[in-house]
């Protein structure tokens, strides 16, 4: 479980993440109805069955190649990028690529080991929803986590122009 932050506030989560259970394979497991976040392997194996769904979610792991869904991103209402450990920074590049290169405009959610002190970086690379780890101070994260710095030197998803191009 986790505590969802969206649009600068605590939010209810309508999405369930499909887990591939023991003995199940992406090709054969049952596809639940509703707002479901599917692992990449399930999406790849079951594209045609899922094609008709109105709202689709996708889960990307650190070593999933975002290039593999480049052509499909418009299909997803939500893409969740997993940070199994917060020190594994691959998800930042995944998010940056989804936003900057592949034109993804839906909800981009950081899930897994999501902590207060990384929220600012996550926001900068293009995340707009955050599943804060359970037990962490949600109110304080919302109040302070996104704004330790009032500006930044580099260009990134939230502000593509580096500071030096915005100097008066």
């Amino acid at each position, binding site marked *: 479980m986790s505590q969802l932050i969206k649009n600068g506030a605590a939010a209810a989560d309508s999405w369930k993440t499909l887990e591939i259970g023991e003995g199940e394979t992406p090709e054969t497991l049952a596809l639940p109805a509703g707002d479901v976040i599917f692992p990449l392997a399930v999406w790849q194996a079951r594209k045609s069955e899922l094609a008709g769904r109105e709202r689709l979610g996708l889960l990307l792991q650190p070593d999933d190649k975002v290039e593999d869904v480049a052509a499909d991103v418009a299909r997803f209402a939500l893409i969740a990028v997993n940070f199994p450990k*917060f*020190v*594994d*920074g*691959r998800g*930042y*590049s995944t998010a*940056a690529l989804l936003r*900057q*290169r592949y034109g993804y405009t839906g909800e981009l959610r950081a899930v897994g080991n999501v*902590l*207060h*002190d*990384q929220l*600012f*970086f*996550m926001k*900068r*690379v293009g995340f707009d929803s955050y599943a804060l780890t359970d037990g*962490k*101070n949600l109110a304080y994260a919302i109040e*302070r986590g996104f704004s*330790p*710095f*009032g*500006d*930044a*030197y*580099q*260009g*990134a998803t939230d502000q*593509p*122009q*580096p*500071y*030096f*191009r915005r*100097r008066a």
Partner: protein
Amino acid sequence: MYKYDAIDRQLINERVAQFRDQVHRWKAGELADDEFRPLRLQNGLYIQRHAPMFRIAVPYGMLNSAQLRAMASVARKYDRGYGHFTTRHNLQLNWPKIEDVPEILAELAEVEVHAIQTSGNCLRNITTDQFAGVAADEIIDPRPLAEIMRQWTTFHPEFAFLPRKFKIAISGTKEDRAVTWFHDIGLHLKVVDGQVGFTVIVGGGLGRTPIRGEVIRDFLPWQDILSYCEAVLRVYNRYGRRDNAYKARIKILVQALGIDAFRAQVEAEWAHGKGGPMTITQAEYDRVAAHFTAPTYETVGDVELPDEKPFLNWLVRNTHAHKVPGYAAVTLSLKKHGIAPGDITSEQMDVVADLADRYSFGELRISHEQNIILADVKQTDLHAVWQQARAAGLATPNIGLLTGMICCPGGDFCDLANAKSIPIANAIQARFDDLDYLFDIGEIDLNISGCMNACGHHHVGHIGVLGVDKNDAEFYQVTLGGRQGNDAKLGKVIGPSFAADEMPDAVEKIIQVYLESRHEDERFIDTFDRIGIDPFKNRVYEGRAHGKAKAAQKEAA
């Protein structure tokens, strides 16, 4: 020198507030130790053998006198009144309290000093040549681009959690003095057909798997350096190994893929960023470069210097050619015999700050050989500088000589150490305490590391000393023939390792072979290249039991 403007000040002040809050939450138990760890590391805080160790950045080695005084003050107030200059343009304090660090950072921020990204798996402090801007062999002053890159690395959102640390070095001179071949990215400024740009080297590093970097791009226009580095870093961030810390540096990825495949990936990535918003504008270059204009040099007439031998010795070793006639760059030696190499007391820092104000436009540099440089001294002031430096114990004329060695903190301070390094340095200094002898031996780099991590650059010392652990006892492995510079290479292991008390003898024997074999005007390294390692090996192990004889000795014992 670069002066902060509103944004630079805002960001470091916000950083202090952020870290204060993080320490507070950690103390309150809201941040677990392993959640706090990377946060403190990215503010320069290690936990070491005795206490936390705190690393303050000296970006590309430049400091002004007010900054050095602030460092002296925090070392006095929050530590034991001394600090240690490292091989990567940092000052380390060995004994601060974690709780005090936010206060230390706040005091340093007032003089535009920080500890941002001085450790941790992120983009580290960018290093360069200590003679930048004044070197007689300079092609392009690297400092404006180093400052632009410093800003770009600061809180980079995509690259704050890399597989491992990432070090960039820039050289703007004909002779590389920034060890660029042994950095994650090494940059050589150059001019081709009137265009300024870089040779880009990638995948070098020392540590447990020392690798000389390879050229990934022969020419990159300077405007493209940020977007190009972002491409390199994105490939590394995505594909660098994260399963094993010892295999996580970019050098391992480059070796695994091969430079050509790695280059192809970087170029494919760069195709998207090239020419984009991260392209450096001329206006930004000019804005930053305006901070690094030459000071108002005077016309210095004929210089007559006193004919005193100790002074002349110092002139030979500790002063360097300057591009402006009548001026010299001066190295203040932090290699006084018997002191840990690179260590400096708060009192000495204050003296150095005064010297800088009086004689060198208030500015200083730190070299990767762990010394301090006054870059712009009038030759007519040299004698006065020497006298005052000597009174403060900062004028040992051993720059580039055997006892001017590089040495890491080793087992006295560092948790990772296999062996102590400072006592070895001091024992060698004691053995070679005779100045005439040192001068006779001439130029030689002796580098000591307390373990494979190679913080003391032992691989690139003409003589390298590495602390190793053998059955829980401290031993030292010696390498010969390593070097930094344009044809940087790794030393070769001479043979079985030595106990601590054998080390001065071993070094002395190596030196004897050199002195007996050298041709006139040959430096140690030239003689080594001519005669090879065997004569040294034979002398050092002469009469020493080895192979079967040694096994027999052991049996008997």
